[in-house]
């Protein structure tokens, strides 16, 4: 069993009294892909900077592969690759030169650096433009070059801050696919932050939902969905021609699997664990009601996101 590689304990960062990160406790296993999700300004970047030892925490500790990020940042930086959200390259240097520069800062000799850079540029699909100046690169190409840049030091962990920002949908899925396959092939632990759940949920083993400096929930996406969907994951809306009465409501309530039911004159809102639309329709029709409208809505990942990000409104944001 792989062990814990990142251990965050009660990590707190205060900015002029404002808690940007509040007592964050989290551990990440070796080899997993962890997604740190949250809206802009939730404290994701601050957390990442503290992990890298680039910002000092106000209190709490981070241990990466046994090293304390605050006290031994050099050891941490040796094994962690970090891709900032606005990755910058030396524009008047070529892609290859930029990579070789990073490699040499990591103590790799020039010759080896060139070899490694060539291989990585091939992996990320930039071989054809390796001798072009980075100034001419598109956002997607920069992002791929950024990935090569974090990989050139042969890291155990890579931390990607908003890696999908500003790339087109096709580019995003290619890029994330690349991250996933690299992580699986080389056993690299990946921590990525994003505010777009639907983009990263495909590759993350686990996610943590981070809002206003607080970690609201951690787990596999299905588990998080389960937590939300305890209240029922199907919403059924029914409208009838006649006015609803107590008797019919009792009949409907008697069905198993209903978690919540509300009615208004001629309308009914039901939350259920499964799709009960046809039995309900049958009851209504058998009791002499004429059905005007019946619709069902299933909760999706988007709703999980809305649920947590929207401050936990119980019904999420309906369509």
């Amino acid at each position, binding site marked *: 069993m792989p062990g814990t590689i990142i251990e965050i304990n009660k990590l707190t960062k205060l900015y002029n009294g404002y808690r940007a990160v509040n007592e964050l406790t989290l551990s990440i296993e070796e080899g997993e892909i962890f997604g740190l999700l949250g809206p802009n300004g939730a404290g994701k*970047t601050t957390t990442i*900077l503290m992990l*890298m030892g*680039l*910002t000092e925490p106000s209190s709490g500790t981070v241990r990466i592969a046994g090293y304390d990020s605050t006290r031994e940042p*050099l*050891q941490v*930086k*040796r094994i*962690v*690759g*970090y891709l*900032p*959200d*606005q*990755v*910058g*390259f*030396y*524009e*008047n240097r070529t892609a290859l030169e930029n990579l070789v*520069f*990073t490699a*040499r*800062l*990591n*103590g*790799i*000799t*020039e*010759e080896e650096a060139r070899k490694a850079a060539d291989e990585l540029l091939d992996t990320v699909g930039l071989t054809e433009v390796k001798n072009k100046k980075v100034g001419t690169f598109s956002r997607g190409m920069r992002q791929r070059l950024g990935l090569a*840049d974090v990989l050139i*030091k042969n890291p155990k962990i890579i931390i990607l*801050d908003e890696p999908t920002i500003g790339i087109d949908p096709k580019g995003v899925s290619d890029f994330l696919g690349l991250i996933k396959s690299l992580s699986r092939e080389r056993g690299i632990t990946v921590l990525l932050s994003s505010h777009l759940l639907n983009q990263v949920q495909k590759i993350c083993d686990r996610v943590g939902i981070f809002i206003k400096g607080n970690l609201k929930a951690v787990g596999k996406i299905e588990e998080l969905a389960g937590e939300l969907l305890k209240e029922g994951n199907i919403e059924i809306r029914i409208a009838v021609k006649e006015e609803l009465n107590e008797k019919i409501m009792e009949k409907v309530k008697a069905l198993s699997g209903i978690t919540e039911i509300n009615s208004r004159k001629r309308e009914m809102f039901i939350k259920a664990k499964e799709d009960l639309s046809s039995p309900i329709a049958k009851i209504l029709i058998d009791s002499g009601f004429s059905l005007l409208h019946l619709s069902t809505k299933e909760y999706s990942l988007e709703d999980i996101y809305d649920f947590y990000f929207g401050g936990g409104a119980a019904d999420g944001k309906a369509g």
Partner: protein
Amino acid sequence: MERQASPFAVLVQKEIGDYIYSWKFLILLGIILLTAIGSLITILSIIKDYAANIDLDNSFLFLNLFTASDGNLPPFITIISFLGPIMGLALGFDVINVERNRGTISRVLAQPLPRDYFINSKFVAALLVIGVSIFSIGFLIMGFSILTLGIYPTLDELLRIIFFLIFTCFYIAFWLNLGILFSTIFHQSATSALAGLAVWLFYTVFYSMLMNLIGNAIYDNQMDLGVFLTRMNRLSPIGLYNELTTILLTPSIRTTTALTFEQLYGALPSTLPFSQSLMLVWPHICGLIAATFICFAIAYLIFMREEIRA
């Protein structure tokens, strides 16, 4: 097997490369070279007059190459005192903020190297570039003169010139560090460039004007006013450098202050040897180096404490 370079050396190497290939550096070097050649040509045309006046006690003809002028184009020391700050500021004004704005700073600092390597490498690289260019220009002038005039410098003159070039590097390094300081304070490189130019303009144009105004208000006595102005002049890096280089390249200057008649009585009107000239300007040298490092220390502190955000 290639020896692996330390991260610091790699950073310095990259910085030097950036400077040498940058247009701003080439343009600056071009301006300084052109003016240096211009002043040299003027000198070569008037040096005969100087040579005619030479006597055995004052035979420092070679130093005139750096200090003499025909009135049309200023002498080399004045050109350097004027353009040196521009060179220093131009090399320093954007070193930190451009990296910050481009986002390269967080990428570099995510590599296993101490944070101060970043700012130190900028300083060391710029200093090396300045040193090489100043010495090349200085030696070019000397070499050219030896070729065309057929006179060569004495050891004393050579030492004076070499020390003049070394202190010129420190002088430019002061402005470089001022530029680096502004580049850590201001996040826009245009603001930082303008701030540096404002300081330069203040010292070149307004400082002496201001001091004259203050001095005239305080002192009635011309003698006291003169002392006050000389002292105040030394608080300006430009004034300090001008006094330093003038004394260093003019062996006949025997003192930095006004002398009374009693002190002058019986003195022989001879020139000073190099070591005595150096002693005369020692406080200037200390002041100039101190100012250089104070600027850098402030920039260093600000940089080390600042938040690194992408």
